[in-house]
């Protein structure tokens, strides 16, 4: 009976109910849009940042993240890699050596960072440098003398495909050693800092140079099928690997600038949505208060014939929930076409930028798209539901508290 009465009461004031419902609908639309935009952008940034070298999760020597150095290494890396690949959420695991070196050509030398890889196991999906090769190709041998450099480094050192590059590192014995390589490929990520300092080298060649053993490396980057499961997978790996000389870090810890940017941006997003929610709640509260104040005598009669105050409170709350539900349904209806367009096509802002935009050295997609995770959708729906109940609470309690004899005096 309460549900039926509440539903019918809403439509006694059609215009008021529709205006309030559309407020909820528009708020729902904005909330879904902001969240979906954020979910897409953050996932995009995170996944791109993992292709810069360290993956979603990194197994590395204890203390390496704070003070990286080529003297810190992990042993038995292939076993660790194979072990990790058994975890269902792990899409890929690689073995890399990462370190600092001086890179020299005939005219100049500059400092930079190298990532030593096994080209047979790498691919463009896991490695942004490979996917960004604009000239030449990735070297094929793990112990060859090929090297892939960025466009800015090529320009600084006046290098092109086939030219010699010498790199100098400190080996595990503390000796300074150098090797000659030839440029096989040049990449361009669009981030000057990256294009001017990052280099790809063959892993077995570096092992020989540094004095590493065959099964040693500095990091095992791991790629999950869903960046949201990073924490869970890290915990599983921690339980599997009981080695005090090794630590397992997530991308938040290996990419703190990126993580910080996402945290701040997400915080701003939440703040905007809270303010939006307050506006919507104010609208519902106003409508419900008017509905209650106009019907004081009617409530008096209902209580006089025996309706308990608690039931009356439930009636008003139910009216509030109905308004929220109607608004939510309208909101979903107006959001769906927009979401379909934005998730498939999006809005391309790349025309506004000559080069790419980056966050902490991570290039992010200039095509704005939507992606809404189910947990975000549930959170929005629950949020709207809670909001409508909260907004209806005061008018409901107010109606139940008035003594029937006072209510009956109203006309």
């Amino acid at each position, binding site marked *: 009976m309460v549900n039926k009465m509440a539903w019918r009461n809403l439509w006694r004031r059609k215009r008021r109910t529709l205006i309030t419902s559309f407020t909820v609908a528009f708020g729902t639309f904005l909330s879904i849009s902001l969240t979906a935009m954020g979910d897409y952008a953050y996932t995009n940034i995170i996944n791109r940042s993992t292709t810069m070298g360290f993956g979603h999760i990194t197994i590395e020597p204890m203390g390496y993240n704070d003070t990286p150095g080529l003297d810190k290494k992990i042993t038995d890396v292939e076993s660790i890699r194979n072990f990790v690949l058994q975890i269902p959420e792990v899409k890929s695991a690689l073995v890399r050596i990462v370190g600092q070196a001086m890179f020299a050509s005939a005219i100049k030398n500059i400092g930079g960072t190298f990532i030593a890889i096994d080209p047979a196991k790498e691919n463009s999906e896991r490695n942004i440098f490979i996917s960004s090769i604009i000239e030449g190709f990735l070297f094929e041998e793990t112990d060859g003398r090929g090297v892939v450099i960025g466009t800015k480094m090529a320009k600084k050192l006046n290098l092109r495909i086939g030219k010699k590059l010498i790199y100098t590192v400190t080996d595990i014995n503390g000796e300074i050693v150098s090797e000659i390589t030839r440029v096989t490929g040049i990449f361009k990520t669009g981030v000057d800092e990256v294009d001017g300092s990052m280099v790809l080298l063959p892993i077995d060649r570096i092992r020989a140079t540094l004095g590493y053993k065959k099964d040693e490396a500095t990091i095992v980057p791991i790629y999950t099928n869903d960046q949201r499961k990073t924490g869970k997978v890290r915990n599983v790996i921690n339980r599997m690997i009981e080695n005090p000389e090794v630590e397992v870090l997530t991308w938040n810890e290996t990419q703190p600038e990126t993580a910080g940017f996402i945290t701040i941006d997400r915080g701003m997003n939440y703040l905007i949505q809270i303010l939006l929610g307050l506006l919507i709640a104010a609208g519902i509260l106003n409508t419900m208060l008017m509905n209650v104040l106009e019907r004081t005598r009617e409530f008096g*009669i209902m209580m*006089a*014939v*025996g309706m308990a105050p608690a039931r009356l409170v439930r009636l008003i709350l139910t009216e509030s929930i109905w308004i929220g539900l109607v608004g939510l349904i309208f909101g979903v209806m107006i959001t769906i076409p927009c979401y379909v367009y934005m998730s498939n096509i999006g809005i391309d802002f790349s025309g506004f930028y000559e080069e790419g935009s980056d966050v902490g050295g991570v290039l992010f997609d200039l095509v704005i798209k939507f992606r809404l995770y189910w947990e975000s959708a549930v959170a929005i729906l629950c949020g709207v539901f809670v909001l409508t109940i909260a907004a209806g609470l005061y008018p409901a309690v107010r109606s139940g508290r008035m*003594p029937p004899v006072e209510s009956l005096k109203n006309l």
Partner: protein
Amino acid sequence: MKALNEVSIRIHSGDFATLCGPSGSGKTTTLNLIGALDIPTSGKIFLEDKDLSTLSRTELSTIRRNRIGFVFQAYNLVPVLTAYENAEFVLALQNVQKKERQDRVMAILKEVGLEGMENRRPDELSGGQQQRVAIARAVVSEPAIILADEPTANVDSDTADSLLDLMEKLNREKEVTFLFSTHDQRVINRAKRIIRMRDGKLAS
């Protein structure tokens, strides 16, 4: 100034009584107290041996739902409910089973002459028809007493007479106890018992 002063009344089962007196004499206050809508500052009110003056708001609500029926002067009905739904309102609050509600409501609507109008909303009924629905709602729950505050005030004389005929019939055939509060001489003339009030006291 006291709204009521040393008022002592006993209403018997089957009474067809009326409180009458000028405006401000305390009729509505007396009705509100008997109807468990208000609590006396001092004194006691007994309904079937239960002292209403000691009960909580929730307990008074329960008493009103189960033992007291009301017919008001105007705006008696819930606007969004049909005649049928208004009549069954109290039975629904009492959690009576749907089938039993249906049987009792249809019977009482027939009794009050509204058969065939079950699906009409209050704005589709005349003033007299609305009062009949209110009477049906009050009677169907089989209360100990029905309190009617100026039930004929908003209707024309013919309608008032037919409403009084109905209530007399219910009193006579079903022994429904009625207590009116009224200025209407027609009601006073039909009452079996008249309780006169003036300035918050019983007048002789």
